[in-house]
Each structure stands twice: as C-alpha cells, then as structure tokens.
C-alpha cells in the first residue's frame, strides 16, 4: 500500500448559513467573550468590519462574515482545534442565532507525479469513451461533483468535488463538504454545536480519505 503524497496545500473551513450581524465580529469581541487571547486579537489584521461584512485575519485563521454567512478557515491543519473551539464558542455565546445550515469542509491539492497519472484519474472518474469521445475531440474533465444524502441525527449531504488543481500542475484538488441542514432555524444553534462536536474529527479528514481511495484504486492498483 503506497502512501498519499503530502498535500501541497490543505485547508479546513467551517461555514454557517443563517442570520448574522457582521458588525459584532471585532477581535475585541472575541477577547471579551474568552474565545481568543489578547495576543491573538492584537496580532489580527482587520480588513473590514461593517454591518455588511466583517473580514478579519487572525494569526492562525481567517474569518469572513456576511449577513447570511459566516466562514472560518485555516490553511494550517495544526490549527484545526482552534477553529473548532471558535465555532463552538461563537454558537454558544450567540445561542439564539438562527442557523439554517452548517458545513465542515476540507480541501487539499495533491501532485499526481506525472501527467499520465493525472489523465488516468480524469479518465477513471469521467470515462470519455461512451459519450464525450464520440462527440468531441480530446475531451477533458474540469470538475466532477458527487453528492450523497446523510441521515441520522444530523441530516444533510456529503458533497465531494474533484478537479484539476489551480496550484500545482499536474495535480488534483479534492474538496469535501459535510453539510447539515437544520429543520428549524429557531433554536438551531445548540443543534449545530452538537453537529460540529460529533462530526468534526471525521469531517476534517473526509477529502483525505477520498484522495487516498482515488490514488489507491486508480494509480497504485494499476502499478502493482
């Protein structure tokens, strides 16, 4: 069994969809609520904070808030526990915030070590012979998305996208989105907290798991 190459880039993010007030998300607010240290707030770079949008770059993660959407992201996976705690903290402090959906996302860019491997992945995920090759000359895959419904305590969908990487050539970008849609926005924040607590550890490795299967089934299987 080969090992997945180290990603050239990796990102973990959390997105909340609901009714939010961007203006309150000032670094000082996080300190007052005990969600960040004074040092972290001091080192933050505030791009903009207004009733329409808040965009703050903290040392370890970025925060963007629009009236209908909040996202926190980091490109350093060792900081994942911090954004987990931040999201739980925000939803606990603002427990009456109506949240209609929450997504736990991972994305990674992986080099395919050769253009041939790159094409193998594209051809295996979207075979060209049946349709595309009969219609067009040398068709190529730009993007493939797979959605799977999720049941249980946190119903929603698992969404996976595979596409050529914009960062490394030849390489692929795999993204995963574990989405939970709340039944009722009223009183939904505590339920979203439960979702994050329960699904976090698997959700932040979902794209890695998909990439491992793609590489093992398409590339390594054929070489052994």
């Amino acid at each position, binding site marked *: 069994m080969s090992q997945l190459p180290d990603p050239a880039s990796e990102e973990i993010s959390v997105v909340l969809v609901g009714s939010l007030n961007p203006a309150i998300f000032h670094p000082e607010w996080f300190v007052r609520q005990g969600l960040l240290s004074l040092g972290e707030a001091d080192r933050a770079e505030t791009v903009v904070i207004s009733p329409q949008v808040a965009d703050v*770059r903290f040392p370890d993660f*970025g925060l963007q808030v629009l009236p209908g959407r909040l996202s926190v992201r980091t490109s350093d996976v*060792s900081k994942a526990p911090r954004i987990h705690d931040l999201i739980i903290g925000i939803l606990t402090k603002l427990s009456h915030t109506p949240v209609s959906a929450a997504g736990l996302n991972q994305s990674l860019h992986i080099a395919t070590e050769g253009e041939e491997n790159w094409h193998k992945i594209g051809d295996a995920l979207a075979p060209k012979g049946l349709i595309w090759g009969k219609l067009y000359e040398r068709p*190529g895959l730009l993007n493939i998305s797979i959605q799977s419904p999720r049941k249980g305590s946190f119903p929603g969908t698992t969404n996976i996208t595979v596409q050529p990487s914009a960062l490394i050539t030849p390489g692929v970008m795999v993204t995963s989105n574990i989405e939970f849609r709340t039944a009722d926005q009223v009183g939904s924040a505590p339920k979203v907290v439960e979702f994050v607590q329960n699904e976090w550890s698997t959700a932040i490795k979902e794209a890695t798991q998909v990439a491992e299967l793609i590489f093992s089934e398409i590339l390594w299987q054929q070489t052994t």
Partner: protein
Amino acid sequence: MATNNLVVQSHSSTAPYGDTDSALATPICHHVLLNETTADFQMSLSDKFEDPGTTATYVAEMVEAFPQFNLLRLTNTLRRKPGGREPSAGLIEERSIILQQWDGVVLFRGKTTFTARLYEGYQDFPVKRAEIEVEEVADEQRDMILAGAPFSWIIGYRVRAGTRSRFSEIYFRRLPAWTKKEIEEAEITASKLDEEVGWTDPRESAAG
C-alpha cells in the same frame, strides 16, 4: 491611493484533464451564490486582479437574480504584510504535516511541570499519563494550565517557504464550560452504565 478603477472580469481557464493541448475551456465565470451552500470554493488565481495600489478579489457575483449579493472585497496591497496572501486563511504563511496528535486533560500542576492524561480519540485505552514541562506551553496560555483543563498536543512538520522543521505544540482548548444540565445528564448516563456493568463501590463493600 486609488481605490477606484476596479474592473470586474471573467477569466479563461485551460482545462488540464484529458489532453492538455486541446482541452481548452472557453471563459468560465465563477458564480458563487454565497447563501445557498456551505461548500467552500477553490479561489482560482485568475479570480484576483490587481490595479497598482489596490487589489480587488472577486468574492461573489450574481448580478441578475440576486443583486443583493454583489460584493467586491477591497484590499490595500500597500498595507499587506510581506508574504501576505489571498484568500484570507490566517496571517501566518505556513502549513503543517501532522505526525502525532493527542487530546489531553490536566490532572495537576506543579511548579515547572504538569501531569496530564493523554489519549488518541475515545477508543484509545489504556490512556497514557505524562509529565510535561510548563515551558512547552506558550506564555499566553500558561494561566490555563489548571486541573481539568483540556488541551491538544500536536507533533509534526511545519513547512514555511519550502523549509520543513519539526514542531511540538500544545494548545489549551477554549471550549465552553459544561452546563449544569450536561453534568446531570453525564451523571445519569454514568449511573446507568455502572448498574449495567454491575460494579460495586469498594468503599461500600468495605463498610459492609
């Protein structure tokens, strides 16, 4: 500094899959309907366009159907710190490769060390016990080393500008305190488990 002269443009993309010579895709306009999905999108380099002194990053466009979602993010490139980057994912330009990760709980704290219980996920048994130097913890977090405090300990490689170095980082978690209701529920669950297993309290046995 000019903050005007912003140009909103689509971009062309060369399709890499299939055959790179021919797989040319004509302009793709990335329309991102921000409030309809929780997915995060790949920010193509060509989504960013620069004007001297001003960078506008195209975050979202849905002109016809949802005019309220028009948004251009403005960033003053002269204020951007050296090595700064887009899109915002934290200020420090580095990434990590995790080799080992433990969750931990402080048992007690001494003058220069603290003793903690360490585990890798809930399935990890028996849990480990370790004595850790207080110096391993960042200055601003040392006040948080108290009995019962949860933390994560990550060991791995940190990659910065192509250079890889080993790191060990302890981060004290900023999780909300247990509520009274959660504590009561945990006690009930523990009591039920205790009954099912059939354990008896040794102190009660000794007294009898």
